[in-house]
């Protein structure tokens, strides 16, 4: 029993890493652009498949494919923003929301058109899990957690040490004030897309490494990612990390009681509970 809880918590941290990376980007984008980006899950999917193209198509090692996919995902996100969202930014935020649902569908259809609807994997090699004190752990899972920690540290340094990072936080706190003090808000927006997309691509690749690739993979984790974002407090990147871990661990632990297919429902229940008790999230200011 105790061992099972520890084991599931370990799996939960792996799942939580993927969710956190998605939720950080969503939270940052929400803070800067004030709209819920519904295509975020599908950006994850695109990233995962771009890495697949690098690994399976070009025969690159995983780290190189990772870099390629991040570059591709960032370029795609900035392109979509410039071609579409920028033109709609002056309308109501909810129009952006509708537009992002359309983008989600376009991205998923593109992935399905190019790579087909069947599930795929990065490597056919069978992985033997390591055993640490009777806790099973695959080396990919270790890589996922280590990669997430590294990305979070880099993000933290960026947000606290660079001018752009500070400008970003300023704009999330108060966009009008940021504009008044001379921050180039359009540049901040582009950077936000770059960071959000890079983290989403990483999340997508990690998800593909942990499970399998499928055109709907990103759409199906969108709900837990949103739950994590709300749990941490919308617009709070650090809160999103905590939210992601809570959602990930709770989802895995729930499999002791409920069938595993209902993991997304657990994330939803957590989100609903949070909305009822404290809608601004764990780290948001109380209403």
């Amino acid at each position, binding site marked *: 029993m105790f061992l099972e809880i520890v084991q599931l918590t370990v799996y939960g941290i792996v799942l939580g890493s993927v969710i956190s990376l998605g939720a950080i980007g969503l939270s940052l984008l929400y803070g800067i652009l004030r709209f819920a980006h519904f295509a975020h899950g599908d950006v994850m999917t695109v990233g995962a498949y771009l890495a697949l193209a690098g690994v399976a198509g070009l025969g690159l090692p995983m780290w190189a494919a990772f870099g390629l996919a991040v570059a591709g995902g960032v370029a795609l996100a900035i392109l979509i923003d410039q071609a579409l969202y920028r033109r709609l930014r002056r309308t109501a935020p*909810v129009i952006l929301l509708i537009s992002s*649902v*359309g983008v989600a*569908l*376009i991205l998923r259809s593109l992935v399905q058109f190019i790579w087909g609807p069947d599930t795929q994997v990065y490597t056919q090699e069978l992985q033997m899990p390591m055993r640490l004190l009777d806790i099973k752990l695959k080396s990919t899972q270790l890589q996922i957690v280590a990669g997430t920690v590294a990305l979070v540290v880099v993000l933290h340094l960026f947000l606290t040490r660079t001018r752009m990072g500070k400008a970003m936080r300023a704009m999330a706190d108060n966009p009008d004030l940021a504009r008044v003090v001379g921050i180039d808000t359009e540049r901040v927006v582009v950077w936000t897309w770059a960071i959000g997309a890079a983290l989403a691509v990483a999340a997508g690749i990690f998800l593909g490494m942990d499970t399998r690739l499928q055109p709907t993979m990103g*759409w199906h984790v969108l709900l837990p990612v949103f739950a994590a974002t709300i749990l941490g407090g919308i617009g709070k990147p650090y809160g999103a990390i905590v939210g992601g871990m809570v959602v990930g661990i709770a989802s895995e632990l729930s499999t002791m009681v409920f069938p595993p297919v*209902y993991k997304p429902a657990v994330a939803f229940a957590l*989100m609903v509970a949070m*909305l009822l008790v404290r809608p601004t999230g764990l780290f948001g200011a109380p209403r």
Partner: protein
Amino acid sequence: MDLFELFTFAVFFLTLVGIYGILALGLNVQWGMTGLFNIGIAGFFAIGAYTSAIMTTPASSGHVGGFGLPMPVGLVLGVLFSSFIALLVGLITLNLREDYLAIATIGIAEIIRLVLKNEEWLTNGVRGIAGIPRPFAGWFEDPTGVTNLLVVCLVIVMVYAALERGRQSPWGRVMRAIREREVAVMAAGKDIVRFRLESFVLGSAIMGLAGGLYAHFFGFVSPEAFDPMYTTFLIWVMLIAGGSGNNRGALLGALAIWTIWAGTEYLTNRFAPPEFLTRAATVRMLLVGLLLEVILLTRPAGLLPEAHFVARADDRRSTAPGTSDSGDGDD
């Protein structure tokens, strides 16, 4: 294709347009009139369909049931159940920001999908529920399905008339005022959360009704028919293309988009090589997505924009900015 086949096809086509039209009318209550963002349409549609299906089918070994109730009772129960779920979702989210409702509706649609797929005792899982009675089944022979179409048309007329009446009533005015300027309505002493809740529940009830009709039209329901993205997304495109806020726009959008959707499907089925068929479906979805973006960028008010709403007291207009979010409709 002889005349009989053509007639049958036209009946089939129009019945589907009608059902989608009812869904679009339901979304128009929520989004068009009140500005509530529901992306869980497929969930409420499915609840209506499955409730009616389970209540009206004869006993089966595959799933709970055997109630064998008449179709109208099944439809009413479907409407009640989808209203109930909408009430729960609304009570939790409607006093929060608009995005929370959107996220919550995705969540509820996803959970409904999981339940339909996995709770075999209730829904027979992926195999679905068959043998749902057609309207007036056993009364007379109807090889063309024209009775279905008439029933759907009757429902559209009723829903349309009721919504138009509601739209022009004080209730409808409050709804649109909430959409345009919430603070002003609050200052006028209206209970905004309650009005929103009414709108959300009414819209979802209409979606549940469409679901019930769908179940009785096809005689078969399975989780695949209620894919959250597919149905939900098409309805959104229909409403936005037709003109949100305008009930006639919602119906026109349903006709236009379904014509494009079914028309391209017919063309690809007929002329595309078989190995291209699954990809053709993907391309069609891609094009619908692009169509939505183009409409949002170039003609956000849709084909039939909502008429500018001018209250009797015309002089108030200057003090009430933003009487329409489109800006290019005619007065």
